């Protein structure tokens, strides 16, 4: 060995060792999960009682954004993978989220589908209810005590070996430990398209609460309180009828008791009377009623219907493609047509004073989507007085949307040109409200007599609904408002305005709801990154 070679050894040795140290390293634990996937975030947004709930599917996280002392505050809450649907839990300040979970595979950890109950209050824990199938829809009872999960639309297999698309899961959310109870509906060629919960239906010796499961061409009745009594499938068409009828609207007659169904593709209203079975004919484990189906003629292609009793018995008011409304006697099926000056797309019912009559009576507002007219209807003795009970008012334009605020005694029409018309239900006065930039959304909350109007600009307008005033003011924000929620501040209990701006990273502004101004406004931007490092560590494990 020469001296020269020996002198080079230390450097060569150090170099070789250094190269060996730069071995490939990966987050082995995180390689299957990794950082959050680089796909566009799609923030779904649900208004709760005290906060906005944002759902970010990519990170399976819900963000509850509320006001704390006038300052916006975001709290991330972990939910399951693949959130499909989120709704406010009826009557409660919490969020319901349906997640489909993850279908297990080699190297992929299985996660069951689940219904998540996320309270807005930080102190309350999140409830996770595992499901027995990867349902893609759910419906709540009007009191929020029950939830039914089902497959709707064209359910796709998420990797399961097999599943029954007519399977349901019923969850009693009042129970201390909610557990899904499996039910199913008969498959008569379709899958459920919607679910309606009835009020208490009065039979001679019991009160029933039924669930109506709507499917194309048929409905199914379920008694949640008596699962042993089985389901009743009621076809709306004959077997050889080529039509496809989709039940769209269901109304209940608690005293009848009966059910009325409006279906697209049919000009008839379907009436299902629940005929009680005599005591001597009842069978244990079977229903105490027999459904009797009949069809009520109500014009052509009904678009809306409403039930009312103006002192002459229960009546069904039906509007459709004809320039008539039909008054149907629910008991005798007798139909009376009342001519109207225009098409009718929506029916709004209320009981209240009318011009010249301070005694509340049942009335209706018929709104057109094609002509610049609306009609007030006195429902009392409508079948005999017909057009004499109608009062037509002219509005600036056909209505694109109708927003009734019955408690405030107003109905607001949003027109195609993005202007408004305010109809006073008591005086039947018409007040046009114009806009230089166009009004996009209307929101009203009971805490203040204000109608909040969002526009494409950074101006948020407020329409004072106090009768006789209808003044408009606006406040300039730093970005256009996409939606508005009025809540109570968590810390000081003052009413706050939570303005949601359209932004993929999350953007909310909080203002004083009673006196909104830039001086008292605070914003929170990019809140989807809240606690991102802690959530990354969770995903990387």
């Amino acid at each position: 060995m020469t001296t020269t070679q020996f002198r080079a050894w230390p450097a060569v040795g150090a170099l070789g060792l250094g190269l060996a140290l730069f071995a490939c390293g990966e987050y082995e634990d995180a390689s299957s999960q990794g950082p959050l996937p680089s796909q566009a975030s799609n923030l779904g947004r649900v208004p709760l009682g005290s906060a906005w709930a944002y759902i970010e599917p990519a990170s399976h996280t819900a963000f509850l954004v509320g006001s704390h002392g006038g300052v916006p505050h975001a709290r991330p809450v972990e939910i399951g993978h693949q959130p499909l649907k989120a709704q406010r839990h009826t009557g409660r300040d919490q969020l319901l989220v349906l997640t489909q979970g993850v279908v297990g595979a080699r190297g992929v950890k299985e996660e069951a589908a689940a219904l998540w109950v996320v309270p807005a209050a930080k102190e309350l824990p999140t409830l996770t209810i595992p499901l027995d199938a990867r349902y893609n829809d759910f419906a709540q009872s009007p009191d929020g005590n029950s939830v039914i999960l089902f497959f709707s639309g064209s359910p796709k297999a998420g990797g399961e070996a097999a599943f029954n698309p007519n399977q349901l899961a019923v969850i009693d959310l009042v129970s201390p430990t909610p557990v899904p109870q499996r039910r199913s509906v008969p498959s008569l060629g379709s899958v459920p398209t919607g679910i309606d919960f009835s009020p208490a239906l009065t039979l001679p010796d019991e009160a029933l609460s039924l669930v109506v499961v709507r499917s194309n061409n048929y409905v199914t009745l379920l008694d949640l309180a008596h699962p042993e009594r089985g389901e009743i499938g009621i076809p709306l068409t004959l077997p050889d009828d080529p039509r496809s009828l989709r039940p769209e609207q269901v109304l209940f007659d608690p005293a009848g008791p009966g059910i009325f169904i409006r279906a697209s593709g049919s000009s008839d209203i379907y009436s299902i009377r629940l005929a009680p079975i005599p005591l001597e004919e009842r069978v244990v484990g079977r229903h105490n009623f027999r459904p009797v189906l009949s069809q009520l003629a109500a014009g052509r292609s009904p678009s809306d219907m409403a039930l009312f009793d103006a002192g002459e018995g229960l009546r069904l008011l039906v509007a459709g493609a004809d320039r008539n409304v039909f008054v149907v006697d629910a008991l005798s099926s007798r139909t009376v047509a009342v001519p109207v000056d225009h098409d009718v797309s929506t029916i709004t019912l209320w009981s209240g004073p009318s011009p010249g009559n301070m005694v509340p009576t049942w009335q209706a507002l018929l709104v057109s989507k094609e002509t610049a007219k609306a009609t007030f209807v006195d429902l009392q003795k409508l079948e005999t007085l017909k057009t004499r009970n109608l009062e037509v008012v002219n509005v600036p334009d056909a209505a694109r949307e109708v927003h009734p605020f019955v408690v405030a005694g107003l109905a607001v029409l949003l027109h195609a040109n993005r202007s408004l018309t305010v109809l006073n239900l008591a005086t039947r006065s018409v007040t046009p409200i114009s806009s230089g930039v166009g009004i996009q959304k209307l929101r009203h909350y009971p805490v203040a007599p204000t109608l909040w109007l969002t526009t494409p600009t950074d101006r948020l307008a407020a329409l004072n609904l106090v009768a006789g005033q209808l003044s408009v003011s606006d406040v300039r924000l730093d970005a256009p408002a996409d939606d508005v929620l009025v809540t109570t501040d968590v810390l000081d209990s003052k009413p706050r305005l939570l303005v949601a701006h359209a932004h993929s990273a999350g953007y909310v502004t909080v203002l004083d709801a009673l006196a909104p101004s830039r001086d008292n406004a605070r914003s929170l931007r990019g809140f989807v990154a809240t606690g991102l490092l802690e959530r990354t560590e969770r995903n990387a494990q």
Partner: protein
Amino acid sequence: MNVVNGRGRLHSLMAAFTVALGVGAASMAAADDATLHAEAKAEVPRLSLGFFVNTGFARDKSFALFSDSPDVAGAGLAGEVRLVQLGRLGVSARAEFSSEESSGRWAQGSTNYEGSAVAAGGMLDVLVLRYLRPYVQVTAGISSAKVRLNGASDLGLAANDRVPFATGAAGLRAISQAKPWWTRGHVMAFSAFLEGGYTAARGYEFALRGRSPVLEDDIPFEAVQLGGLSRARPHVRIGASVHF
């Protein structure tokens, strides 16, 4: 000096390091044996400048937001002043600047992490063999980091933080002396070192704020708490220096 955490660039640095060592080795080979033997026990030149590349091992899984790998690669420059030489033992004062950078992704796009540090401290080395000087060193300084979340959002979400730190390390240095022709008789030496160490520091706490500058009448906005990122980590470092 920023070094992108990419294997290609790191390999380029390694190649440059190899070239530098090769030049040093060649210059050493050019000196005659008698000169080297006579200078083997001589003092190390007073001043030195060098560069290094290092890799840290981020134990904190939160770092997955900024990198696909727990390795945090960086590079830096260092300077030393030899204070005392007592026989085989030497004491030096040391100052260094280092930086690191990495990128990753989040749900809406890419992420960036940039870190830098300045530190000063002392080193104790001892001559054990002809060219080998193992050493220990302790440095302390300030470390700063900046993170950015990019993507569809135009909010320009970025945050930075600064923390003090202290690093203890031990290593092995191979140093040789020579009289390269271009120094006209001055003593110069080249060295290479391999070192391992550990940095102790509190973690970074990042609070995202929107894009600046902020207009005077903008509605005030709250910072978004991104979370904490650990700064403490072990590291391995290799480098080369020239002593003069």
